């Protein structure tokens, strides 16, 4: 299979849309064809070969795209990919992994907003931090992330997992306000602290917070303390075990019969109850 190595030649000011350079597309292309692929840059079109040094190798296994010297002006990296691997050396711009269906993206840096927007499957690993709307729905849509896994090793911004329906988001650092807003399924795990209004208007799914929570919305109902719970999102669900001792809440009762589960670490939040 093919390995494509793109090295950004110099810093750019106007963002470039990288949605055409994904493993399932490049596996059928020659070096020349790849160099001539047109990318959208602002209101112009540029060729891959004009922006990047391009190198194409034969490798074992799945097709792979490596982007070196990357920065946050490269948008839609790995967007809509179905298989293979994308490895980003450096930061990445908005919409990394948007609508991806399969394969894996590894970002060895920070990601801008909308990482994994409307993601359907596959895995997105961000080694640095991510900005707002990780794993959210397209602006205005009520049908968000429907599968796959997003892991952010640093912090994340506001409104992560907005309208999420399925899949997993794991943030190892802290997150901003309204994590899991309108959540309708899936699991969000936050190892660090969260800002206010966690789970606002959620209908289903689960949010686990290991760090500090200043306050829980008054429209959540306290259920008691649980130890090493197994999160079940439906009757048929085998369950996802999590470790620790948590206050369990159900909400958000702005809706009728909500099924959203909120688990908040007892150890770091003695002030809550």
């Amino acid at each position, binding site marked *: 299979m093919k390995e494509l190595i793109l090295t950004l030649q110099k810093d750019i000011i106007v963002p470039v849309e990288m949605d055409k350079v994904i493993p399932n597309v490049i596996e059928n292309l020659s070096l020349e064809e790849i160099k001539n692929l047109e990318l959208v840059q602002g209101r112009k079109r540029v060729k891959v070969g004009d922006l990047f040094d391009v190198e194409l190798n034969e490798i074992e296994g799945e097709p792979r795209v490596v982007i070196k010297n990357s920065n946050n002006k490269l948008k839609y990296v790995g967007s809509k990919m179905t298989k293979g691997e994308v490895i980003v050396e450096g930061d990445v711009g908005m919409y990394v992994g948007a609508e991806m269906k399969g394969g894996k993206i590894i970002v060895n840096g920070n990601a801008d907003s909308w990482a994994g927007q409307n993601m359907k499957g596959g895995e997105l690993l961000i080694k640095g931090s991510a900005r707002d709307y990780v794993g959210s*729905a*397209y*602006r*205005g*849509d*009520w049908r968000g992330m429907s599968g796959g896994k997003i892991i952010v090793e640093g912090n994340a911004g506001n409104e992560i997992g907005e309208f999420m329906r399925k899949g997993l988001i794991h943030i190892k650092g802290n997150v901003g306000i309204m994590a899991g807003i309108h959540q309708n399924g899936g699991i969000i795990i936050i190892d660090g602290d969260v800002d206010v209004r966690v789970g606002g208007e959620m209908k289903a799914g689960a949010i686990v917070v290991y760090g500090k929570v200043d306050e829980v919305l008054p429209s959540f109902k306290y259920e008691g303390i649980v130890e090493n719970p197994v999160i079940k999102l439906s009757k048929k669900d085998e369950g996802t075990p999590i470790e620790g001792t948590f206050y369990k809440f159900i909400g958000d009762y702005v809706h009728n019969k909500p099924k959203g589960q909120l688990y908040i670490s007892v150890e770091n939040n003695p002030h809550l109850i």
Partner: protein
Amino acid sequence: MEYIIKNGIVYDPLNGVNGEKMDICVKDGKIVESVSDNAKIIDASNCVVMPGGVDSHSHLAGAKVNVGRIFRPEDSVKDIYAKKGLRTGTGFSVPSTYKTGYQYSEMGYTMVVEAAMPPLIARHTHEEFIETPQIDKAAMPLFGNNWMVMEYLKEGDIKACAAYVAWLLKATRGFAIKIVNPGGTEAWGWGKNVHSLDDPVPYFDITPREIVRGLAEVNEMLGLPHSIHVHPNNLGHPGNWETTLETMKCVEGIEAKPRYGERETSYYNTHCQFHSYGGTSWKDFESKAIEIAEYVNKSKHVVIDVGQITLDETTTMTADGPMEYDLHMTNGLKWANCDVELETGSGVVPFIYSPKGPVYAVQWAIGLELFLHTNTDKVLLTTDHPNAGPFIRYPRVIAWLMSKKYRDEWLYNKVHKWAQQRSHVADSDKEYDLYEIAKITRANQAKVLGLSETKGHLGVGAEADIAIYAIDPEEKDGKKIEKAFRYAKYVLKGGDVVVKDGNIVKQIFGDTIYVDVQVGEDLMNEVLKDVEEKFRRYYSVNIDNYPVSDKYANSWRVIKIDATDIN
């Protein structure tokens, strides 16, 4: 510029031309008897030639359409229109203005009427018209919940009401009297609705029956080109067919007396599909389309447009505020609501008509039943764009009507079985021919709008608005029919070729048509005193800032009516 369209198979119902091979001559924007040898030849062999399409009910411009655009970015992203040399546009169910104009034109449409214009926000509608290319436009201001109208009709002062209607039509550059859920939208201001024709409106203590009948009388007194254009009470509620019939019956005996045009009907029931529901709840929901069609067929005064469900994800928008609230409570999706001072209100909610939904399947079948059972002189093709589906689906509706095979393919394979069980659509073998298609998409519409002197036909003297489709009259393959009507081979607008092979080749801007009725001066002065009083006391704007000024159109076309005998 001269053109001769050669060897086309012509369908022109208003002139009784049914599939004759003939040439059509065009000179200086009009259809003429003959042209010189210098005329450019358009080869229409193996093609069908029809007058340009006319859409009498579509929500294409104005405040609530724009709310739909703004609050549905997820609809915008679904359909992006970017063709070289043309303005780009976005939106599947609520397209931006240029996209709207281009796509209507691609389908061979040359005139579209905006179905609901809140008078106070008329400017917004006209501003969007200015930016809507390719088609002629007109807008119908809303009267059915207007305080002035309700007060005059309550007092029984038909003449004063007529003068007020004339003033408002001119002030807003409107085209006809639109009535939406008469009294219901006003009741919504109190958090209520009206549920039958004799349910009084809070405070005004007038019934929907009095509003509809009163405005029908006003309409014929003024002799407007179009009749009253009515969206009756109880839209979308199971069992509403009785209200629909009652409303049609309540204007029996009011004869059409247009002072302009050749209209014969005095009552236009819009999106009749939404008003032909039987049952008492969604559980025993069933079609009453045949009952409605039977009444329409035997009644001289009624004409209907269908509002065919196209089974798409779309955006509903109407001045029927309480109905939109009900819809929002049913589907749980986002909802926008607006109150327009003394005049009307509105609501917007996204909606997904899934073919697998039992109720949606029946709604789909009801629309088709109306087409199949109503006399084809009395039915018009619409999807109430975008309420039942976007207008770009007209070709698909045409395909369902022309091909029983294609209709059955959907009925038995794609939609829920309720469509077979709770309607009679499966029993009908009727297939529309192109003559009937020409009626329901242009001839009937032009006539009922009162514009048939120059629109909707191909006789000498008509505007050269012509659509040429590459289709065999005997074609029964649904997909081919759809493609032929979606992308016309040629479209001429005002004598210019604007579309060739489905692509826009020339961008033009049509006229905005409005009605200017002159009533007796003394009467108008009396009524203006009342109007001024209302503005002083209640309106948030000054009366001098209310009328739409001359600059709000690329070009106006005025229909002047002398009704000075009303005094």
